[in-house]
């Protein structure tokens, strides 16, 4: 009896310890999240690593030469066509994020400070248009801005112009207008969330201490809502750099962006390594821009204090 009990006790100990370990918070938490995590690793991280690897290789007709080379990056950064496309994508994306944040801030402010009990209704109203297909929203802008479009026929009906203007569609302005519209909700929501967190008593205190509405806004509300402005800027900026549909549908020759060139390399041109290098360059530029934006907004925030 005793021998058996002694013999089994170490075993029981380890089992107990193992159970304790299995029931510990980190193990259970990690076990629970691992299927989703592994999914993201296999379908997001692995593919991006493969793209990065390809960007250092060379394509010879149908075979890929796996010797390390920086040639693709040289082409991506110095060939005028790709350089121009990268600059244009950068310019369009920065303009769009600036416009979107500037337009979104007042409405987020209005909902947060004057929305009353209709706050969630306002937010819902704002999100509805964004649950329509992106494709259809872009196409609607084509209907509005086109040669026979709503704007042209409207302006002609009002006698403001005599013949339809071709200046509205198929250029980078059309891309900017469309994207500014398409990403509006994604800017409003984070700014709204950060404004909701602004302690109202601080604003009152500033007013009580003699700050006018403008000063208390600039010195209290605006700096405190900076995190929301940062995430709004990033949420708009990052995906717009690589937008494909909008430039293709409303951009015309002068509104084409880098994603269209990437697609061409993987499609018709069938030069995967160059396409990969363009993708990696785009991601790097996005990262740099995101970092710069965060730094700039933080600096402004510090200045305001």
């Amino acid at each position, binding site marked *: 009896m005793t021998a058996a009990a002694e013999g089994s006790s170490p075993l029981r100990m380890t089992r107990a310890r193992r159970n304790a370990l299995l029931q510990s918070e*980190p193990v259970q938490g990690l076990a*629970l*999240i691992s299927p989703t995590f592994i999914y993201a690793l296999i379908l997001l991280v692995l593919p991006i690593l493969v793209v990065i690897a390809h960007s250092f290789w060379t394509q010879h007709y149908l075979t890929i030469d796996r010797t390390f080379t920086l040639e693709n990056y040289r082409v991506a950064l110095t060939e005028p066509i790709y350089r121009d496309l990268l600059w244009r994508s950068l310019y369009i994306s920065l303009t769009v994020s600036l416009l979107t944040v500037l*337009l979104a801030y007042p*409405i987020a402010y209005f909902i947060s400070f004057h929305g009353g009990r209709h706050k969630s209704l306002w937010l819902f109203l704002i999100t509805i248009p964004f649950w329509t297909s992106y494709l259809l929203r872009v196409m609607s802008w084509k209907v509005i801005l086109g040669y026979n479009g709503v704007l042209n026929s*409207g302006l002609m009906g009002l006698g403001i112009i005599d013949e339809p203007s071709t200046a509205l569609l198929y250029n980078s302005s059309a891309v900017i207008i469309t994207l500014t519209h398409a990403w509006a909700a994604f800017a409003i929501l984070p700014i709204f969330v950060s404004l909701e967190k602004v302690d109202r008593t601080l604003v009152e205190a500033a007013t009580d201490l003699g700050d006018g509405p403008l000063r208390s806004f600039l010195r209290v509300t605006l700096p405190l809502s900076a995190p929301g402005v940062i995430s709004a800027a990033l949420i708009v900026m990052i995906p717009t750099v690589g937008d494909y549909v909008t430039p293709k549908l409303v951009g015309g020759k002068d509104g084409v962006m880098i994603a269209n060139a990437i697609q061409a390399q993987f499609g018709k041109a069938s030069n995967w390594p160059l396409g990969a290098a363009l993708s990696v360059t785009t991601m790097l530029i996005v990262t740099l821009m995101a970092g710069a934006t965060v730094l700039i907004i933080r600096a402004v925030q510090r200045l305001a204090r």
Partner: protein
Amino acid sequence: MIAVRRFLSGGWLATYAFLYVAFLYLPVIFLPIFSVNTAATPKFPLTGFTLHWYEDLPRTPALLDAAWNSLIVGVSAAVLSTLLGILAARSITRYRYPGRSTIHGLIMAPLVLPEVIVAISMLLVMLQLGLSLSLFTVVLGHVLVCIPYSMTVLTSGFEGFDRSLEEASADLGESAFGTFRRVTLPMVAPAIISSLLVCFTISLDEFIIAFFLTGTEATLPIYIWGQLRFAAKLPGVLALGTLLLVASFLLMTVAEILRRRAARRTQNEGGLYA
């Protein structure tokens, strides 16, 4: 100065807000308007009312195939991403462990990566693995982009969930799975349904991933993309777009109501029993 004060105090802000919302709805409004117009080119003045473009839709076999494909992809993507979302959201809201925010960040990453790059890198891997492109590969891609949205909906439903309810259930002899099924699940059911609807809507409307990862079978957005090349097909596309808009609107409204109910339930009832 007076102007600024009036602006900040809400008078002009309200006007601005209404104008801005009008701007947001502007392009969306034209879909239904021109879809019932007799003229094939979308311009004012309208020429007359017709349901002709809608009547043509069910007579287009390619469209019906695309709708069926979208349904298959949407349901599969919604179920899979919600399942993966439940696991991750539960882990994030319930447990603390090292690397938690890094893993969370990675899972949410598709939200902020340019979609083209996500699509193309997946395409590259699938081609290298010799996987032929099909609706299955589209589902794989859609699940990846749906998970972050599913997580957002589910964490808002799981947060504030009163843990003592689960502890009570365990103390009363329920197994871990039994507790989940009989205590946790009913509480978060509205959030789960909401997540299913949100993911289905995203998949229904998603174009880029489907564009790169589809083989020969088109989904609805791919079908629309093909039709956009022909000016004469535009009214039909507008009619189809209007139907999709109505479907998305209904699904999202239900999803939003359920999400709110879930958030209210976990927070209020949790507090009540605590």
